[in-house]
């Protein structure tokens, strides 16, 4: 059943040089429609670099990222309409705007392709789902958790085919985590692909169908979660095993 899903995003021979000592090299990756993939790895292994390449913030010198057959760099606008990004950094918000102003801005950008009323309705629905109420507070004054909620709403507002998440659980309280996870699950069932970068191996094992493990810029493992668990008992055990072996 899993094998019959449509491949909607491919990464081919990707090479990104970030410094004299670090280079990300991804020979080949494919992401399925309605799939959930977790990218795991130690600090500085290249998770965020890969995530930022998938959302088009980093332009690869070599290799390509293709979304539904379109080159992510050449067909930038079409691809970005299909991708939603939930970053793990407050800097992605304009601190001076209120949450309502920020959502209005996003609604006006996406309103070229979706009805404005529908987008506004989605903002309200997503906010209700995540228990977000601070619409009239400046983004800079919000708590870390509320900022994350704003980023989740911003990332899902335009109903993207791909959602790329960097550390979903950071800053959220247990209720918000449960609701955000449920939200992503529903999107996934509806055909949206979820790609998440995380340090939380327990969550990755529970959430993802597939795991990509990165170490010092190289993909050292790309396998189904159930197979990893069947072989090693848990993702954490496999992580330690793989890292120890490579070290």
């Amino acid at each position: 059943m899993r094998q019959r899903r449509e491949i909607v995003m491919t990464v081919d021979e990707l090479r990104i040089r970030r410094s004299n000592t670090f280079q990300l090299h991804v020979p080949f990756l494919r992401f399925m429609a309605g799939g959930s993939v977790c990218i795991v790895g130690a600090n500085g292994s290249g998770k965020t670099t890969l995530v930022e390449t998938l959302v088009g913030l980093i332009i690869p010198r070599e290799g390509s990222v293709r979304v539904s057959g379109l080159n992510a760099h050449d067909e930038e606008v079409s691809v970005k309409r299909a991708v939603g990004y939930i970053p793990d950094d407050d800097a992605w918000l304009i601190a001076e705007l209120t949450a309502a102003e920020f959502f209005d801005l996003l609604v006006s950008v996406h309103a070229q392709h979706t009805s404005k009323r529908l987008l506004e309705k989605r903002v309200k629905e997503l906010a209700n789902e995540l228990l977000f109420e601070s619409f009239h507070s400046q983004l800079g004054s919000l708590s870390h958790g509320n900022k994350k909620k704003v980023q989740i709403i911003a990332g899902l507002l335009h109903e993207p085919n791909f959602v790329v998440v960097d550390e979903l659980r950071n800053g959220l309280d247990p209720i918000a985590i449960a609701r955000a996870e449920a939200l992503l699950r529903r999107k996934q069932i509806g055909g949206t692909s979820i790609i998440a970068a995380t340090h939380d191996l327990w969550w990755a094992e529970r959430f993802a169908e597939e795991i990509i493990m990165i170490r010092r810029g190289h993909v050292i493992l790309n396998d189904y979660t159930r197979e990893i668990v069947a072989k090693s008992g848990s993702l954490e055990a496999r992580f330690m095993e793989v890292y120890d072996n490579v070290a």
Partner: protein
Amino acid sequence: MLPSLARMVLIAAFARGAHRPAKQLALRSLLGLGAAVVFGSMFGSAITRMHIPNDLALALLIVIMMLAGFFSSGLVLLTMIAMKHDVRSDELICILRTLPLCKNLRWFLGHLPTVVVITYLGVFGTFLVVAASRTVGYWPGLAVIAFWLGLYSAYGFLLLPVLNRVLVRVAAFFGMIFLLMKALDWWLQNSTHVVGQHVPVAICCAVLLANLGYWFDWCSTGTKSKSMASSVVYLKISKTIPQQLWFSARLARNERTRNSLLTAVLLSSLFAAGFWVRSSSQVSQSLVMLLGSILSATFACDVRGVVTRYKPAEQSILWSINALLKQEGLITLLASAVIGLPLTILWLANDPSFFSIVAVISSHLAGGVIGLLVGTVLVPAAGEMGTQFLSGVTASGLVVAYPRVMSLHEAGPALQIAGWLSVSVTALVLIYGIEKTRRKRYGYA
């Protein structure tokens, strides 16, 4: 969509950290425009009283206005580039890059804050250009167009892809200015020569060619990756830094202050070299004082911004306020002396009397202290384009206004020294009071 996006970009550039950003943006925009109009009309009326020759050729007027626009815009933009750390603006560009926006729109939004700054400069300059044109008896339209073309050409020049480092930009810009001035000189001396008749066209073409920078920049939009932390070059300093040198080390490690200091020293050296090459005997003491103190003040505005604005860990944990102020003051004075050194040497060649030299040095040091005061009040942090611009303009304005109000330029050297010293001491006392109050109020909303 465009108004919402433009508003976001302008808020991020000119109203960063404001509690009511929309109101602050409107207020600051009106203030900027008002200042441009008021100062423009004041200086414009001063120009009408100047002795400008009536037989000035129209071609010469157009070339001069184009060069004036090119020079003034380039100088302001270079100062802003030196004061700016790219990371904050990159964040805004990153936000824009995650949105499905077309290339043209993203390119336009990226340049919008600079366009606003150039426009204010243009409004100010237009009054002067109109006044000058009317004084020599020409319709001002052509001169105004030439001036605005010069303004925007300077920005185009600084966008050229080969000029990707601040110091290269400064050197290239002044190299261009030097060549253009040489061409203008040659034309004035050989205006009847066959080749000489084509020089104004060549000068205008050279200035307009700088607009190719816009084209290159447009082509590279979306082809560059997001800035990476690893691309920020930190100056390596030994880990065993004595506590007394800690603040200096912090300034040296900060790319913004480093660039700002290097640019100020380079500009000062270029001014001194330019005066020396052209006609050193015509240089007045007030000009040497003014240039040195403006450059020192512009650098000193950045010094306080190295330490965080509202959570001064350095103040409460590492040292007392007194120790911080001592460090800030010493570094500012030392840097001001270094910035003013080329101009001081130039003046030494003109008038080697002891008091005259001390007056020049004290004006440069006072400029630094005034800049530090403005920096302490506004604390322009990295990427706060509006605050940086405002602090630079305020400090420069104070440095220009103070000697005029006190009539220091007409006074003798002893009085000049006393005047500059008294303003320095007053500024230091004010800085101490501001920091003390800020520390006492820390924690209160």
